[in-house]
C-alpha cells in the first residue's frame, strides 16, 4: 500500500516540481556526457596528456556533486514544508513517523531514479555532441557511436548517488521533531513581515555598493594605487566580497521598506506598492538563499568567461602560434639535423626543407630595453625596483627566467626572406645600411615604436631602421623570443651563429606521432623533446666560458608551448585537448551552477504562486484587470529573477573584464575585453530566459487555476 502511495505521490510531485525534475535530468545528462570523455578509449590512446582532463573534470565533478547535493537537500526540505499538512494527516491516520519518513525517502529515491534514467537518455545525445566537438578539435572524424562504458555509467551512478546520500543524510531527523498540530498549521502560515532597525540596515545597500566599487578599483588599479597586492589584501577582499554578496540583500530589502515608509513617489503609481512590498518581503525572508544564488551565478559567469577565453584562443591563436609545418631547434650550431631529415623523408613528403642560423653579436640592448619596458616585468629589472631608474644590467645578465636569450637574436635577410616565402608572405628588401625588426604583434602593441632607442651595428657602422614586421613567425624561442633583428647579408659579417634551426614545409598533413619520433632521437641536450635548461648547460658554462645559454621562450604567458621539435599537425590537437581540459570543465561547472540556481528561484516562485494565490485574487477583486494582474506577475517575477542575476553579472562582469584584459594582454590575442563576458552573458540569459518563461507560464496557470476552481 505504501508503495502505491509513494508512486502516486511521486507522480504528483514530479508534476508540481517539473522544473526540478528537468534540472536533475540535465545534471545527469551532463555528468554522463562529461564522464564519457574520461573513459573514451580513442582519446586515451591519442592523447599523451589525457590525465589533465581527468583531473580537471574530477575537480569540477567534486564541486558539482556538492552543489547538486545542496539543491536536492533544499528541495527535500522545501517539499517537506509544502506537504506538511499531508504528513500531518498521515500521522493523524495513525502512521508512524518512521513509516512516513520511509515513505518520503522512497518517493525521493523514485523521483531521483526516474530523473536519472531519463537523464541518461538525454546524456547519450549530449555525449554524441560533446564527442563530435572534441574529435573536431583533435582533427579526426567522429562517427556517431554510442559508448556505454561500464566504468563511465558506474561513475555517473556514483556521482549522482553521492549527491543523494549527501542530501538525505540528515533528513530523517526532521521527521523525529514533527508534531501534528504544527504540521497542520504550517501550511496556513503566511509570511510574517518582521521589520526592525530598517533605518540602520538600509545603509548596508550603499555600503555594499561602495565596497564593490572599491573592489573594482582595487582590481584594476590595485597594483598602482596600493603598491601591489599581497596575500592579506586578497583574502580580505575575497572575504569582504562574500559578506557583501549576502549583506547586499538585507540592505536592499531595508532600503525598499524605508522608501515605502518615506512615501516615495514611485509607490503611488499603479501596482508598484504591491510589487515593492512583495519584493522586499521575499528578499527579507530569502536573503541567505539569494546570496547563495548570487554566488552560484557569479561562479557560473566566471567559469563560462574562462571557457570562452580559452576556446577563443583555440580557434584564433593556435594556428598563428605554429606557422611552420615542422620546426626543429638545436642549441649546437654544428649539428646537421641528419637524423631528423631522415625521419622527415621517411614518414612524410617534404616539399621544402631549410636549415639556418639565429645569430648574435654579443650585445643585449633589445633584451635590456624590453626587460625594462614591458609591463609583465614591471620594475623588476630596474635598479632598486624603482620606476624611471636605470636598467639593472647585472641582474638582467644573470637572470635565467627563460624569456630572452643572453644576447639579442639576429637573422640574415636571405634566411628571413626564405622563411617568408615558405610561409607565403611577401619578401622584404633592405639596403646595405638598413635593418628590420620582426616582432610579435602583442609586444609591438605594448611597446609602440622603440627603434629610436636601438643602435644596430653592421659591418660598416650603424644601420638605419627600416620597419617592423609582425606576421606570425614562431617567436616562442625558435625565431628568437618575441623578436628577431633582420640584417642584410652583406652587413652581417660581425654576427656569430647562436643556435641552429630547421624548418620543413610538408605536402599534406604530418602523420600522427611524427613529433614523438623526432623526440625519440634523444639528443643529449634535450629531455623528452624539451631543452634541458637546468642540468647540463650550467655545467658546461662553467667548463667552457664561451658557451652561454641560448634558448628562450619569449614573454607570452598563460599558454606557452616550448619544445625543440614542433610538428604543427601533431601539436595543435594536443594543445587543443589540453585547452579543452580547461574549457569543458568550466562550461560544465557554469552550466550546472546556473541550472541549479535557476531551479531554486523557479521552484520558490511557483510554490509561492500556489500558496499566495489569494494575493492575486485580492488584486482582481479590488479592480485590476486580468491583463493587469498578469503584468504585475510578470514584473514581480522579473524583478525577483533579475535581482541575483544582475547583481552577479555586476560582480562577475568586473572580474571577467579584468581577467579578460590580462588574458588578452599576456596571450596577445586580439579580442575586445568585453567579448568573453559578453558571450557568457548572452549564453546565461538564454538559459535564464527558458527558466523564466517556464516559471511565468506555471505561475499564471497556478493563479488562474484557482479562480476557476473558486468559481465552480
Amino acid at each position, binding site marked *: 500500500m505504501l508503495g502505491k502511495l509513494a508512486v502516486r505521490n511521486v507522480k504528483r510531485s514530479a508534476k508540481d516540481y517539473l522544473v526540478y525534475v528537468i534540472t536533475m535530468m540535465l545534471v545527469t545528462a551532463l555528468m554522463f556526457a562529461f564522464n564519457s570523455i574520461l573513459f573514451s578509449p580513442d582519446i586515451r590512446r591519442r592523447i599523451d596528456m589525457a590525465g589533465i582532463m581527468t583531473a580537471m573534470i574530477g575537480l569540477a565533478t567534486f564541486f558539482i556533486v556538492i552543489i547538486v547535493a545542496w539543491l536536492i537537500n533544499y528541495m527535500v526540505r522545501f517539499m517537506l514544508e509544502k506537504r506538511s499538512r499531508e504528513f500531518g494527516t498521515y500521522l493523524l491516520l495513525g502512521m508512524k513517523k518512521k513509516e512516513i519518513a520511509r515513505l518520503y525517502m522512497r518517493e525521493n529515491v523514485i523521483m531521483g531514479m526516474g530523473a536519472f534514467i531519463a537523464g541518461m537518455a538525454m546524456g547519450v545525445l549530449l555525449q554524441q555532441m560533446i564527442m563530435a566537438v572534441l574529435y573536431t578539435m583533435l582533427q579526426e572524424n567522429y562517427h556517431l557511436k554510442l559508448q556505454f562504458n561500464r566504468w563511465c555509467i558506474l561513475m555517473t551512478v556514483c556521482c549522482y548517488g553521492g549527491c543523494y546520500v549527501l542530501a538525505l543524510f540528515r533528513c530523517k531527523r526532521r521527521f523525529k521533531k514533527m508534531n501534528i498540530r504544527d504540521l497542520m498549521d504550517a501550511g496556513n502560515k503566511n509570511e510574517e513581515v518582521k521589520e526592525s532597525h530598517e533605518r540602520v540596515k538600509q545603509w548596508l545597500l550603499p555600503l555594499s555598493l561602495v565596497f564593490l566599487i572599491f573592489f573594482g578599483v582595487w582590481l584594476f588599479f590595485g597594483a598602482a594605487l596600493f603598491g601591489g597586492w599581497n596575500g592579506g589584501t586578497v583574502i580580505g577582499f575575497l572575504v569582504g566580497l562574500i559578506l557583501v554578496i549576502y549583506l547586499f540583500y538585507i540592505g536592499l530589502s531595508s532600503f525598499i521598506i524605508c522608501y515605502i515608509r518615506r512615501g516615495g513617489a514611485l509607490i503611488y503609481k499603479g501596482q508598484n506598492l*504591491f510589487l515593492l512590498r*512583495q519584493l*522586499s518581503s521575499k528578499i527579507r525572508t530569502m536573503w541567505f538563499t539569494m546570496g547563495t544564488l548570487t554566488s552560484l551565478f557569479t561562479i557560473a559567469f566566471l567559469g563560462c568567461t574562462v571557457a570562452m577565453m580559452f576556446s577563443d584562443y583555440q580557434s584564433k591563436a593556435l594556428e598563428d602560434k605554429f606557422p611552420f609545418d615542422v620546426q626543429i631547434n638545436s642549441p649546437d650550431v654544428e649539428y646537421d639535423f641528419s637524423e631528423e631529415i631522415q625521419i622527415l623523408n621517411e614518414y612524410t613528403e617534404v616539399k621544402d626543407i631549410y636549415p639556418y642560423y639565429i645569430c648574435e653579436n654579443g650585445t643585449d640592448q633589445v633584451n635590456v630595453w624590453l626587460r625594462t619596458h614591458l609591463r609583465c616585468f614591471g620594475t623588476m629589472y630596474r635598479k632598486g625596483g624603482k620606476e624611471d631608474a636605470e636598467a639593472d644590467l647585472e641582474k638582467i645578465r644573470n637572470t635565467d627566467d627563460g624569456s630572452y636569450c643572453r644576447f639579442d637574436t639576429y637573422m640574415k635577410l636571405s634566411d628571413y626572406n626564405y622563411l617568408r616565402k615558405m610561409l607565403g608572405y611577401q619578401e622584404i628588401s633592405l639596403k646595405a645600411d638598413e635593418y628590420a625588426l620582426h616582432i610579435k604583434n602583442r609586444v609591438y602593441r605594448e611597446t609602440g615604436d622603440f627603434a629610436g632607442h636601438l643602435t644596430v651595428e653592421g659591418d660598416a657602422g650603424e644601420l638605419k631602421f627600416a620597419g617592423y614586421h609582425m606576421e606570425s613567425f614562431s617567436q616562442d624561442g625558435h625565431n628568437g623570443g618575441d623578436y628577431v633583428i633582420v640584417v642584410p647579408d652583406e652587413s652581417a659579417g660581425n654576427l656569430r651563429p647562436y643556435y641552429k634551426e630547421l624548418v620543413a614545409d610538408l605536402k599534406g598533413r604530418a602523420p600522427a606521432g611524427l613529433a614523438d619520433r623526432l623526440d625519440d632521437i634523444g639528443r643529449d641536450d634535450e629531455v623528452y623533446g624539451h631543452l634541458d635548461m637546468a642540468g647540463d648547460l650550467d655545467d658546461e658554462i662553467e667548463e667552457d666560458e664561451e658557451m652561454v645559454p641560448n634558448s628562450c621562450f619569449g614573454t607570452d604567458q598563460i599558454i606557452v608551448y616550448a619544445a625543440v621539435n614542433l610538428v604543427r599537425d601533431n601539436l595543435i590537437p594536443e594543445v587543443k585537448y589540453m585547452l579543452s581540459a580547461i574549457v569543458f570543465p568550466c562550461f560544465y561547472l557554469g552550466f550546472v551552477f546556473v541550472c541549479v540556481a535557476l531551479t531554486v528561484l523557479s521552484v520558490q516562485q511557483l510554490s509561492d504562486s500556489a500558496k499566495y494565490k489569494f494575493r492575486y485574487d*485580492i488584486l482582481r*477583486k479590488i*479592480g485590476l*484587470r486580468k491583463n493587469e494582474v498578469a503584468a504585475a506577475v510578470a514584473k514581480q517575477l522579473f524583478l525577483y529573477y533579475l535581482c541575483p542575476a544582475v547583481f552577479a553579472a555586476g560582480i562577475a562582469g568586473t572580474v571577467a573584464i579584468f581577467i579578460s584584459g590580462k588574458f588578452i594582454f599576456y596571450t596577445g590575442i586580439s579580442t575586445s575585453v568585453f567579448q568573453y563576458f559578453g558571450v557568457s552573458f548572452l549564453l546565461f540569459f538564454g538559459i535564464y530566459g527558458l527558466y523564466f518563461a517556464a516559471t511565468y507560464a506555471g505561475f499564471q496557470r497556478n493563479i488562474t487555476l484557482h479562480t476557476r476552481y473558486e*468559481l465552480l
Partner: protein
Amino acid sequence: MYDNIRVCDVEKYYGNDSNVTKAIDRVSFTVERGEFVGVMGASGSGKTTLLNMLATIDRVTSGHIFYGDTDITELKDEKLSDFRKENLGFVFQDYNLLDTLTMEENIVLALTIRKEGKAEIQRKCGEIMRILGIEEIKNKFPYQVSGGQKQRCACARALVNRPRLLLADEPTGALDSRSAQTLLETFTDMNHSLNATILMVTHDAFSASYCSRILFLKDGRIFHELVRGKKERRVFLNEILDVLSLTGGELSDAR
C-alpha cells in the same frame, strides 16, 4: 443615473448536462440607493453565489443585473474589471488584506490602481482611516492586529473609493462578538453618514438585525423578506429569529 440595483430573473446553474445544480433559481429584487440589505440563508442556499454575481466575479446563467442603466451581465471581461474598480467595494469574512502590506498601504493600493495623484491618495486615505478609527495602527501589518481591526481596514479599503455598492460576505464570521458589534455599528454609521449602499450576506441573525431589509434565501429562491422600518433592533432581531426557526421545516411552513 445609477440610482438602484435591479436583479431580474437571475438563474445560475452549476455542473454539466447529466448533473445540474440550480444554485440560484429565478431571483428578482431591487436595492435602492442608501439601503442596507441583508441576505440570509443556510449553507448551500445560494447566498454567496448571488453575492458573487452582484460582485461581477461570477456570471449569471440567465437573467439580468442592472446597476442603474448598465446591465453588467452584458459587459465583457475588461469592462467588468473597470466596473468593479469604479463601483464596487468588498468586505469578506477572511478580510482579504494583502499580508505583505501595512494597513495604510492596503488602502493606498486600492487608490493607486485607480491612478490617482499622491496628494489625493493621502488625503482620502487619512480621512477614511480617521472615520473608521484605525489611524493608530496604520503602520502595522495584518498579522499584528486583531480581527476586528483587520475587518475595519478592509471596510476602509472598500469604502475609500466611495463605491455605489458595498458587498459584504459574512463580514463578522471570524470576529468575536464585541468586534462584530463594533463593525456592524460602523456599517450602520457608514450607511447613514456616507449614504453607502450595503449588501451583506450572513447567516447570523444578530448581524442581520442591523440591516434595514432582509432577504431570506432557501434552495436558490427568495422565500421571505423582512423590512425593519422604524422598529427597534431588538424587535427586528426577534422577527428574524422567528423566520429562521421556521426555515428548518418545509418551505410551506414558513409561509
